[in-house]
């Protein structure tokens, strides 16, 4: 695959009109990738999800040049509420509609301003090397976006064995707010999707970000996210992880200034041979910040779920509250769940905790429900749905909560 990849890269460079500095950044990222290859399980961060093996198992060959064909069907998504939207096709900005908003308060743009960092994570090298544009969304200072913004990701009809690289940068200026839904339900089978989002939340601003992967697909996905929180800003983050064959969501949150807070909750709900990972790093850099994480998993058939969560507290970050909890229900013997909680604390006046439980469904609870007329499978379903519903109930946007209940079928 390597030679092919090099040809693909050269082609990307020759087909596009990149500036010299862009070419340089791309080349360096590409070189780093070319030298090291995809991450594998020898890398601690990829211990439970050997993406190198997963890619080679699923694809004979990956095509990195994707021509935007624009032939795609808008799916009939169950959206019964007013919303704004931005559509991406094959990772590139296609269309947007902010009919509910003040037009001059939201900017949507696309360019190719790449960071000059050469990443250590070779998937990010790959992303930088093959990107042809970065989409940028800015919410102007003091503006509260009225309706949820949904980011739809479409793929061209018939696209397969392709690597899609996409990057969206979102900037919430000070005193603004946004409800952002990442709709990770592509209309395709079997592609490798490498998403990256970089978000900055300004002072006194609020971002609610819901990330929904719910439609069954053969796609292999990596979703990398960097979120920086300014002073007194708040992030509500939610993950529904159940659709793709493989997805790893790699979320790095930086509490860059005082009084920032994060509530990060997620569900991993798997069947068949799906393999999903959520990995979080919460970086407490300054005083008086709070972070709460709750991840619940239900695993069935031969599925595999992973939660790696790290809370880092720097010496300056006194009065930190940092909590995380992982709970998993393992419905049979052939599933696998790995939890790796980590606390790294360099300040002395902090409240931090982590907890992880995994176990079977409680047979006494099943008996209780069956004695009320429910069959074994109905009882099991009600118990697992209730278990997961506790996380869904934490969603503060009622429209999105209803959407999540519809998509997941969890309604108890």
């Amino acid at each position, binding site marked *: 695959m390597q030679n092919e990849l090099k040809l693909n890269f050269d082609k990307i460079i020759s087909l596009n009109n990149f500036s010299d500095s862009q070419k340089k950044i791309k080349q360096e990222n590409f070189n780093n990738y070319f030298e090291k290859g995809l991450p594998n399980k020898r890398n601690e961060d990829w211990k439970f999800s050997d993406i190198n093996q997963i890619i080679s198992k699923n694809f004979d060959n990956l095509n990195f040049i994707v021509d935007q064909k624009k032939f795609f069907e808008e799916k009939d998504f169950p959206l019964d509420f007013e919303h704004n939207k931005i559509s991406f096709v094959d990772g590139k900005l296609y269309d947007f509609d902010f009919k509910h908003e003040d037009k001059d308060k939201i900017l949507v743009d696309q360019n190719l301003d790449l960071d000059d960092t050469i990443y250590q994570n070779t998937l990010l090298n790959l992303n930088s090397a093959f990107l042809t544009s970065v989409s940028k969304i800015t919410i102007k200072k003091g503006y509260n976006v009225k309706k949820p913004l949904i980011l739809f990701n479409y793929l061209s009809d018939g696209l397969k064995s392709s690597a899609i690289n996409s990057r969206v940068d979102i900037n919430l200026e000070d005193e603004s707010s946004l409800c952002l839904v990442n709709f990770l339900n592509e209309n395709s089978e079997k592609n490798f999707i490498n998403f990256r989002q970089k978000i900055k939340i300004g002072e006194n601003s609020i971002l609610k970000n819901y990330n929904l992967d719910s439609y069954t697909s053969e796609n292999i996905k990596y979703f990398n996210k960097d979120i920086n929180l300014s002073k007194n800003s708040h992030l509500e983050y939610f993950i529904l992880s159940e659709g793709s064959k493989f997805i790893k969501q790699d979320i790095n949150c930086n509490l860059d200034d005082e009084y920032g807070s994060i509530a990060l909750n997620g569900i991993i709900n798997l069947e068949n041979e799906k393999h999903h990972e959520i990995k979080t790093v919460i970086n407490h850099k300054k005083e008086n910040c709070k972070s709460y994480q709750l991840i619940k998993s239900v695993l069935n058939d031969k599925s595999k779920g992973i939660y790696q969560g790290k809370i880092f507290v720097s010496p300056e970050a006194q009065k930190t509250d940092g909590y995380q909890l992982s709970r998993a229900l393992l419905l049979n013997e052939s599933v696998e769940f790995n939890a790796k909680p980590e606390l790294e604390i360099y300040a002395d006046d902090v409240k931090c905790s982590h907890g992880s439980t995994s176990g079977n469904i*409680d*047979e*006494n*609870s099943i*008996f*209780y*429900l*069956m*004695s*009320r*007329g*429910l*069959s*074994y499978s*109905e009882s099991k379903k*009600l*118990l697992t*749905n*209730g*278990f*997961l*519903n*506790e996380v869904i*109930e934490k969603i503060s946007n009622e429209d999105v909560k209803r959407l999540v209940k519809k998509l997941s079928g969890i309604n*108890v």
Partner: protein
Amino acid sequence: MLSIENLKAKIDEKEILKGLNLNIKPGEVHAIMGPNGSGKSTLSNILSGKKGYEINGKVTFDGENLLELETEERAHKGIFLAFQYPMEIPGVNTNTFLKTSINAIKKARGEKELDAIEFLKLIKEKSAELKFDEKILNRQLNVGFSGGEKKKNEILQMSILNPKLSILDETDSGLDIDALRIVSEGVNSLRNKNNSFLIITHYQRLLDYIKPDFVHVLKNGQIIKSGDFELAKELEKVGYEDFN
């Protein structure tokens, strides 16, 4: 209605019921009293189909071999167990659960399922009868309920499902006097010529309100004596230890 002949039950090689006989006819209220470890809860578990017991003997319900039926089939046929320790079911709204339960039973019986409005009407009516705070029904099932609220919730379920045979497994334990009265009223309001009750208890107290037709003493896995309500009074005086 219910006939138990020479019922023996073992769990983990330990024999708990050692040949129990009991007949309950429609409309009758039977109380089983006995000390800790006599097999009272085992009996109620076996009647409602809990797994894990090695069972011998014959149990029929309306002429049908009860032991061959799954737990939910027994519920469909009209057996209800009010649990000694009702399970907490996190994340499941109590109302949603009640509706799922009653409609599962109606469906199995080939009856029309209740729609949202019919269900709410039924719930309102029954909650009022049992002086049950409806607000509690919007909370997660039994989660954070007090001991009394859990037991009252069991009685509410019983009254909604209107079973032929209700088994109350130490429903009186941990109840204050007011709750005890509400539970008793719940039972008494369901009493009619078709509905039967099997009330398992340690104490006479609940029976003062319910006035059972028959009282049985269970000791060492067998019913050692049967009688009327007077037997309960005698037991209370003598104690289980010396009762023979």
